[in-house]
């Protein structure tokens, strides 16, 4: 029993089996299940995108937990009245019923108490699930012996799906895809600006209900395939992953649907090919991997892109500081000696700014590469282009100083301290506007020498 995780070796299927399953040729039942979960993934991606944007992602979690008492209750009722206690429509009907009841309870708590949404969700989720567990333990002591299937709904088990179950799942998923696609525009308006939607005459409450209805449909449909704990994942993860790639609503819907579809497809294919790989878990892990990749690598909102942008910004700011540093030295030096600065002086000067020697050298090298400074042996000197750039930086700095003092009521002693950060983000048009407004008041923005900040009397 002791051993590593890899003790259990899976027998890998041959290539032909893999290709056949991927191409949906591995028997009718398998194909139906794969198509069903793919559709379910697409539906989850679409509906989830709406509920994510409506900031209701976790509502699906409360909802899915709340289906347990419905399933167990429907089972008990069927046993009591001698019906088919494993009839899927009855069990799913019960699930939908308590799911909707849970949504109503959340609304009721939000309306009639001062509790926030998170607490309302936590209460409803745990209490409904607790009731479910109690009913389940009653069902387990019932003599009919068919209750074993009930726990499939907790963890999901595609293998236990019959052809009819899979067809039912596929068609409900298809229905919710159609509804979500048809009403995409109205739902989008509700998600982004419900107040505006209301005044333009869109029935916001009705659409909200519809969206909740879609979430219930997807949740209940997903119960058998992914299980009630993981079904929330097919609603949240594809949508959250899609959000990284785009700021456009339609694109996001498309990406979420594709991510959901691919996860559903791969999940059920892997589950069909390998033993002991429950489809639900694989689906969630595939979409989780897509989410991780999106979060890291997405072009604009990804972590790497953001970090790169920040690093580039820091380097640019450091370069501009170095330029103005060089410019100041050049002006302080006696005429004719030029601006050449030996490396030691440079490092010492930069040290005063809290830069490391390595960072200074990196910044200097970047400036040299851009042709703004010239490296002469171990010293640096401004090129004409560098001088112009340095003067531009200094001019922006002064513009800001003046602007902050005259318009923003900043104490003059703080001016220098905050402008250093802000001068680098000035846009060209803003600079022109500032220049014009300051020059109109007789303040020159250009010109050499240390600018004298006009201090008011009380500041002295």
């Amino acid at each position: 029993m002791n051993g590593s995780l890899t003790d259990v070796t899976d027998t890998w299927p041959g290539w032909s089996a893999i290709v056949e399953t991927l191409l949906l040729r591995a028997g009718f039942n398998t194909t139906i299940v794969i198509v069903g979960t793919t559709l379910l993934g697409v539906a989850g991606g679409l509906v989830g995108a709406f509920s994510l944007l409506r900031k209701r992602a976790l509502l699906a979690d409360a909802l899915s937990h709340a289906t347990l008492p419905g399933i167990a209750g429907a089972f008990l009722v069927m046993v009591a009245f001698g019906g088919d206690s494993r009839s899927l429509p009855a069990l799913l009907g019960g699930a939908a019923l308590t799911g909707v009841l849970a949504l109503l309870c959340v609304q009721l708590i939000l309306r009639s108490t001062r509790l926030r949404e998170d607490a309302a969700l936590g209460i409803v989720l745990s209490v409904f699930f607790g009731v479910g567990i109690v009913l389940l333990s009653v069902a387990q002591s019932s003599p009919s012996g068919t209750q074993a299937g009930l726990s499939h709904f907790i963890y999901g088990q595609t293998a236990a799906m019959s052809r009819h179950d899979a067809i039912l799942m596929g068609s409900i998923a298809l229905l919710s895809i159609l509804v979500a696609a048809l009403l995409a525009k109205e739902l989008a308006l509700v998600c982004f600006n419900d107040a505006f939607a209301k005044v333009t005459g869109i029935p916001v409450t009705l659409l909200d209900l519809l969206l909740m209805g879609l979430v219930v449909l997807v949740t209940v449909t997903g119960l058998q395939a992914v299980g009630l704990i993981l079904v929330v994942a097919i609603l949240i993860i594809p949508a959250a992953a899609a959000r990284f790639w785009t700021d456009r609503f339609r694109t996001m819907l498309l990406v979420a649907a594709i991510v959901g579809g691919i996860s559903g497809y791969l999940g059920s294919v892997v589950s069909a090919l390998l033993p002991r790989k429950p489809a639900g878990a694989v689906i969630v892990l595939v979409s989780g991997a897509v989410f991780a990749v999106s979060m890291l690598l997405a072009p604009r909102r990804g972590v790497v892109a953001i970090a790169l942008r920040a690093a580039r910004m820091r380097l640019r700011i450091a370069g501009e500081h170095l330029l103005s540093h060089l410019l100041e030295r050049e002006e302080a030096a006696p005429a004719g000696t030029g601006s050449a600065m030996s490396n030691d002086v440079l490092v010492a000067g930069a040290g005063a700014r809290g830069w490391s020697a390595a960072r200074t050298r990196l910044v200097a090298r970047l400036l040299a590469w851009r042709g703004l400074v010239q490296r002469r042996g171990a010293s640096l000197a401004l090129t004409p282009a560098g001088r112009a750039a340095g003067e531009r930086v200094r001019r922006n700095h002064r513009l800001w100083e003046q602007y902050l003092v005259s318009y923003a009521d900043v104490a003059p002693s703080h001016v220098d301290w905050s402008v250093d950060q802000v001068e680098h983000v000035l846009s060209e048009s803003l600079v022109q506007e500032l220049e014009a407004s300051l020059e109109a008041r007789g303040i020159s923005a250009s010109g050499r020498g240390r600018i004298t900040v006009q201090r008011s009397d009380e500041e002295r």
Partner: protein
Amino acid sequence: MIEALRVDPWRDLPPLLAAVFAALSCGLLGNFLVLRRLSMMGDAISHSVLPGLVAAFLIAGTRSSPAMFIGAAIAGLMTVGLVSLVRSAGRVESGAAMGVVFSVLFALGVLLLEQAAARNVDLDADCVLHGQLEFLFAVRPAGGAPLLSVEWLRRLPGEVYTLAVMTVVAIGFMLLCFKELRIVSFDPELAASQGISPRLVNAFLMVLVAAATVASFKAVGSILVIAMLVCPAATARLLTDRLHTQVIASGVIALIAAIIGFFGATAVPRALGLADDVNTAGAMTVALGLFFAVTVIVAPRHGVIAGALRRVRLGRRVLMEDLLGTLYRAEEREAGVIDESMSPVMRPGPTGTQRLRAEAMARRRGLITGEGEDATLTSAGRTAAADLVRRHRLWESYLVQEAGLRADHVHDPAETLEHLRDEGRRPIAPTATDRVDPHGKPIPGGE
């Protein structure tokens, strides 16, 4: 029924103790989760300990408590870290971040569990959800031993001790850091400005919540953990506005619910004629749910009934005040103080049964005499009515002078504002020259 309430020190007391300690540690810490709007964090943590448990089991090869505890604790802390990473680095809304993290970790756990099952290892996934309170008994020694003896203490299951330590740690943390927790929960910016790091306090809280979750769920199951983290605190929040009262109340509620659930799991099915007990952790959750539902309805200030009563009383007072105002304005017309040019429309005031009810209320208070057409103000009633009309006209002046509304737009808002009672919302008295409202009507009283 009575027999179900008997407590066997070997069979019943250990699980009861475990449940009580779990209830206390989770229930008390939950207050700050609810205040910080992080209630679902307990949900996320308790779902995602599954892979930690299974991995610990597969690596250590035993079901020994320390290994499982460490595995679960690592998974719990990973959840907290990953959620905050996804939220801050990925800029994903916190609910969605929790959903992503816990479902992926749970999926990983399910997959690992299947690997374990393949080796014929009995690691019941259901116990993660339902807990195994029923199996937390102490083995009765052959000769029997008295309750609370050394022998009894020695034979208590380890979970009971883990939970007891956890409870002490949780209570100690709250006693030591109550001030910090309170200020961070209500006003993180103020806390930061006073040198209390909200991030640090939050991190401590999260670590403790993770620890309490991990310590509890093996005994009571993750669902009861979530319920204990949220329900007692939310229930107590409806009962009081003071934080320390709320914390104490939540502890009491958690305690009582645990005890009721424990006995209810046996007693209620028997009363209903069912053969077997129901799941104990589930029964405790149901007890918590019932407590909450009852509190929502009957809570003294924040309950549904209290709110409805307040609204009814307010409605009656407004009706009566409207009647007084109508009678006063009618007197003013008769006396010629106001005329058609100032108010072309004479508002009828309450009518029908509303009028009858308003009259009855005013008569009971000695503010009017007579009824229907003959109703007239008593002197006390005239004073009250003058005060009301004064407030109405002062509000009208205020709305025209200070809020810049047109004179013909101020009646309706003033009609609402005149009923406000708290001192802070009294209209500002106009200057001595302002003895008339924007319509030229005199402002009574206030000389």
